[in-house]
């Protein structure tokens, strides 16, 4: 068989290469460029080597922000994934209520992120907000703008409200794809409800749940908009997660070098953790 080698095919790929270069590679390279140089203004740059990376990795400020970020992400994962699965399990499988439930579930996902932040900010205000006032009326000393604990509580509540729906919808999609025969067989085999969940529903939902955990992990690790509108990182630095801190360094202090180094470290952490998650969750698939 004679294969025709025609390198003209490359021309068809070129537009995509150009597009990807323009919107991903080139911006990323400017960040790399800033991360290894020092500037004192006037567009004069000096070679700085890995100095900024060392500085960021050793700074206590970065450690604290990273710790808060991890705490936030794992807390919301621990709440949203089980809660999402639980809600999906209680949703009807067929009938007129299915579309109603689906739309209700999808609603929080349709609201622009800064609106979510603004909504919760007002909702939680201790003097006029429904939530804040009610909590205080009930005797709780609640003020999310002053007390770090209250700020965290509000932040997590907001994220759970905003994003549990995503887990619900994905888990629900996994659940409705299970044929009836499985439930009937389990009934005949005398399986208790927990065994049905453990041996039928959970294994069948595994793939979609993997996607759900990955998406929630990545998104929550990058959370910026809602958080910056709700608390702006405060009170003090108590809710300053990585993205908020990065913006403070890059745009507040205009420290382009450290900010660029931090961006790259931030990016690599997300990449590495996503890879670890995915590998762990898909490990059994090969067996």
């Amino acid at each position: 068989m004679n294969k025709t080698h025609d390198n003209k095919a490359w021309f068809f790929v070129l537009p995509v290469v150009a597009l990807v270069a323009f919107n991903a590679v080139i911006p990323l390279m400017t960040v790399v460029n800033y991360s290894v140089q020092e500037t004192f203004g006037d567009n004069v740059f000096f070679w700085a080597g890995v100095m900024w990376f060392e500085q960021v990795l050793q700074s206590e400020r970065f450690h604290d922000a990273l710790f808060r970020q991890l705490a936030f992400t794992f807390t919301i994962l621990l709440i949203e994934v089980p809660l999402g699965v639980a809600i999906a399990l209680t949703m009807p499988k067929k009938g007129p209520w299915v579309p109603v439930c689906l739309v209700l579930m999808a609603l929080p996902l349709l609201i622009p992120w800064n609106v979510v932040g603004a909504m919760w900010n007002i909702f939680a205000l201790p003097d006029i907000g429904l939530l804040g006032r009610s909590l205080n009326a009930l005797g709780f000393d609640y003020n999310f703008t002053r007390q770090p604990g209250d700020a965290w509580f509000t932040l997590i509540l907001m994220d759970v409200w905003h994003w549990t729906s995503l887990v619900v919808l994905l888990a629900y999609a996994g659940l409705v794809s299970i044929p009836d025969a499985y439930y009937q067989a389990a009934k005949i085999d005398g399986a208790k409800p927990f065994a049905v969940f453990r041996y039928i529903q959970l294994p069948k939902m595994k793939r979609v749940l993997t996607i759900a955990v990955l998406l929630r992990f990545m998104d929550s690790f990058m959370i910026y908009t809602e958080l910056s509108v709700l608390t702006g990182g405060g009170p003090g630095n108590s809710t300053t997660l990585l993205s908020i801190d990065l913006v403070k360094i890059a745009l507040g202090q205009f420290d382009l070098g450290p900010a660029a180094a931090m961006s790259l470290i931030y990016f690599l952490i997300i990449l590495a953790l996503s890879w670890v998650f995915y590998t762990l969750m898909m490990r059994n698939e090969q067996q």
Partner: protein
Amino acid sequence: MAKIVLDTLRHAYMPNPTQDSDWALKQLDLEWEDGGAYALLGPSGCGKTTLLSIISGLLRPTHGRVFFDGQDVTDLTPEQRHIAQVFQFPVVYDTMTVYDNLAFPLRNRGVDEKHVDQRVREIAGMIDLTHMLDNRAAGLTADGKQKISLGRGLVRSDVNAIMFDEPLTVIDPHLKWQLRSKLKELHQRVRTTMIYVTHDQTEALTFADKVVVMNQGEVVQIGTPVDLFERPQHTFVGHFIGSPGMNVLPCEVADGRPHVAGIAVQAGGSGNLGSASGKLEVGVRPEFVRFAEAGDTGGLPARVVKVSDAGRFRIVEAEAAETRIKLLVPEGGDIPQEQAHLLFDPDHTAVYRDGWIVA
């Protein structure tokens, strides 16, 4: 094990059935002996799966009762009825090993591990899965998975009946035969009542001692494979069973005897049909039609229109009185050119009124 009795069973999927066609099952009275192998045979949508679900307890009938050994089980769950079922698409618990799959029904019932182990190994031996007990069930082929489904029914010692809902649909053709004979062999060994639902006549006829043929929510005939072949009670059975199916020819009665296209036909022990009303037909299988030879008298004049070779025999289509009649000619048999006369074997020719046999 149990004798199963169905008493005036009717079922409709809609809440208020008014007309005949609203019923998925019209009216059913059946008795199945303990330890028998039965098949429910019929085309898609005839109600056989509905009937199966009613017997297994997955569905509650709109009307009528189900009895196992005289006990009314109509309101009992599948678990309480002690039945097992093998579904059309193999159901295995993916995350478990083959061993755990087979042990699952026993463990759910709190059987002690020693007894579980003994039962699982015994059954695994019967269904040839001993060598892969430690494999993950998800990795098995479709026929292996169906064996596990069957095994989960067999391990339980309290099973009243095992149901099969078209279990060979997803199995490769060359394995179907193997699994079918395995099933037959297992039935002879364990003697549990088995009910097998299928639309494939070969599966039904090879598996079952008695076949229940259903059409449009009604039982058309219950009988041994030989009964169904030699004396179909309804033209539908004649059509549906046999390949090619039975010839059904319009006829009229004169002098108390059936006439096809004006020529008298002998049918079974037909007495005087009298002045029968309704739609009358003569049914005769292609196996029992032959060409008239020298010395034969009478016969239906026909014209050969098509001959197709099926290996051991040839299927001949002849045209007589504006209808087509099929007949089988064995290898080496003569096929007359163009004009011929057809003779029906009187013992295997029957007259049907409105579809049902009369003589």
